[in-house]
């Protein structure tokens, strides 16, 4: 019974990783850059909801919408100010800029909110599900997280396949120059990608903080890195890959904590990543990348 319980927590944690990983993978697929500031957008999303709910008394669901709006604007502004001028610069310069933005966001949060841990009030009101006479308790937040992850995944896939803007994203990711010649607004498409990725980050932030209710300026850093691993694990650039990578990573992390060693969980997660990359250098669903190149 405890195995199922570990599995459920693993899937729930993995779903958060998956939502964050979607942001990494979309931006990488289109702008060919690793947006290391993505994890910190999550943290900002968490703080916006915290301030709105705890300090201003706004309805939690409205707060989530506000948080998504703030993060979307933040993502687009960061892209315009920090990344757009470097579009033709070397990938390393963009990478370093992304790390700089990450530190900037952390320190701005540190200045505004201070470094004390804030206890986040869960916005998920769903009750725990008790099965088998209380032997198995599934936290409500786990159910909501997994459902949110599935809905986002389906929505995003439909958006990319069915809408004009979505198809423009695919076109830009395959060949920027050709896409421009076809009359696609490349800059607009990249901005849109950042906007969607950052909006998702806000949702991920809310779910992360609802499951683990502690909020500090560094809250986003470690989940951000893990989600990046998940994106690489699943095949960076591939949306279903981010999903599978995230959930697998969460399950591996939780089960190795439970059955191997609670201290070694992170080491095991990264060891699995190395093995997967040795066997399949492009990740589990990494074929998409080869088509693009």
């Amino acid at each position, binding site marked *: 019974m*405890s195995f199922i*319980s*570990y599995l459920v*927590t693993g899937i729930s*944690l993995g779903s958060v990783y998956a939502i964050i990983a979607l942001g990494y993978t979309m931006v990488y697929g289109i702008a060919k850059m690793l947006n*290391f500031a993505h994890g910190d957008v999550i943290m900002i999303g968490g703080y916006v909801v*915290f301030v709105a709910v*705890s300090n201003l008394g706004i309805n939690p669901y409205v707060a989530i919408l506000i948080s998504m709006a703030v993060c979307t604007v933040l993502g687009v502004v960061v892209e315009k100010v920090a990344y757009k001028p470097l579009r033709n610069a070397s990938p390393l310069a963009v*990478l*370093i800029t992304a*790390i*700089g933005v990450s*530190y900037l966001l952390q320190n701005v949060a*540190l200045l505004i909110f*201070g*470094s*004390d*841990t*804030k*206890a*986040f*009030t869960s916005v998920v009101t769903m009750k*725990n599900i*008790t099965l088998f006479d*209380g032997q198995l*308790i599934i*936290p409500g*937040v786990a159910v909501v997280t997994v459902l949110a992850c599935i809905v986002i995944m389906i929505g995003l896939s439909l958006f990319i396949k069915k809408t004009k803007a979505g198809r423009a994203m695919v076109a830009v990711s395959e060949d920027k120059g050709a896409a421009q010649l076809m009359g696609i607004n490349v800059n607009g498409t990249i901005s849109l990608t950042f906007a969607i990725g950052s909006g998702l980050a806000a949702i991920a932030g809310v779910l992360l903080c609802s*499951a*683990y*209710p*502690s909020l*500090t300026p560094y809250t986003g850093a*470690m989940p951000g*890195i893990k989600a*990046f*691993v998940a994106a690489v694990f699943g095949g960076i650039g591939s949306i279903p890959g981010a999903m599978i990578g995230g959930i697998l990573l969460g399950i591996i992390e*939780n089960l190795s*904590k*439970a059955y191997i*060693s*609670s*201290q070694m*969980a*992170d080491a095991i997660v*990264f060891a699995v990543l190395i093995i997967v990359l040795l066997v399949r250098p492009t990740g589990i669903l990494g074929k998409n990348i080869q088509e693009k190149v």
Partner: protein
Amino acid sequence: MKMKKLVSLLMVAALSASMLTGCGSSNDAAGSSDAATDTTAEGTENAAGGTLKIGGIGPLTGAAAVYGTAVANAAQLAVDEVNAAGGVNGMQLELNFQDDECDAEKSVNAYNTLKDWGMQMLVGSVTSGCSIAVSEYTKDDNMFQLTPSGSAVECVQYDNAFRVCFSDPNQGLASAQYIGENNLATKVAVIYDSSDIYSSGIYEKFAAEAANQPFEIVSAEAFTADNKTDFSVQLQKAKDAGADLVFLPIYYTEASLILSQADKMGYAPQFFGCDGLDGILNVENFDTSLAENVMLLTPFAADATDDLTVNFVKNYKDKFNGETPNQFAADTYDAIYAIKAAAEKAGITADMSVSDICEAMKAAMTEITVNGLTGTITWSADGEPTKEPKAVKIVNGSYTAM
């Protein structure tokens, strides 16, 4: 990942380089202010015996900010009291408290800043890791160091360092004995931070002593600094093992998460912690009802009724926005009075060198007895205090002596 580490290292290097460039000017500033205080000291020396410069280091921001702030506040309160009552040997005390964000490197930087300022003895660092890092430097400089709350064994490994709080092994020992003697549980689970010297130190001694006690450790699960938000697995294991008491030799930030995750799981054992849990009631927005009935081993309870505690709590509240002082504040208050007692015993004067002060204080510390907030304390030459442990229970959102 690797790349990020590498690049962040580079950035740190660049940052420190820029700090070094900044240092030139701040050194000058420190130098000139030194000169300024020196002249005032000389001017008043005949009348008042000069100024004894005490440095303080601790986390005023960061994850352990509750501790550092309490220490800085209490140190200032005690210094003001001592000065108002005529100082030490006619000298006034001057306190300069620096932030280290609970980071060993920043703690050493703070130590160097304080040395530039002209520090003659050190109160700090507040946390164990920082205290150990700084003690390597105080040893080389032969600077007298008194940490109010650095509880790891190594904090006082050199003979110039003393502490006011209990050591980690003592806390582990006392916790095991307390649980055993009061029959609090028969099956005990432990959740500890294996990447933290404070936490693992307490755990090791606790586990060793458990063999002599009428309870059994049914589950001992660790977590690390990089993985300290999700405790569901550790709690699930404790629950499956049927533990009726969970021992938490950890800091309050993680403990607040453990309490709320246990509540979500519907798991309600007795929780028992050490002085690291002190501060859990101050976590912003934390539902303190979750901490109800949590027990912790601490030498200080703010609701005690002796005159010393009552006055201290009142003065502290008046001065610092109604905040209730915690055990760190009490340890620090005792630390300043220990310095006063030892300095009077040793006949310290402001014009003595840092090394001479240290030698004199080392000898005097073993001879004094301080009737402080945290009990009647004496020190041995290895830097360890001797005092009685007390346990408190959280009832209606405040500590109640047991």
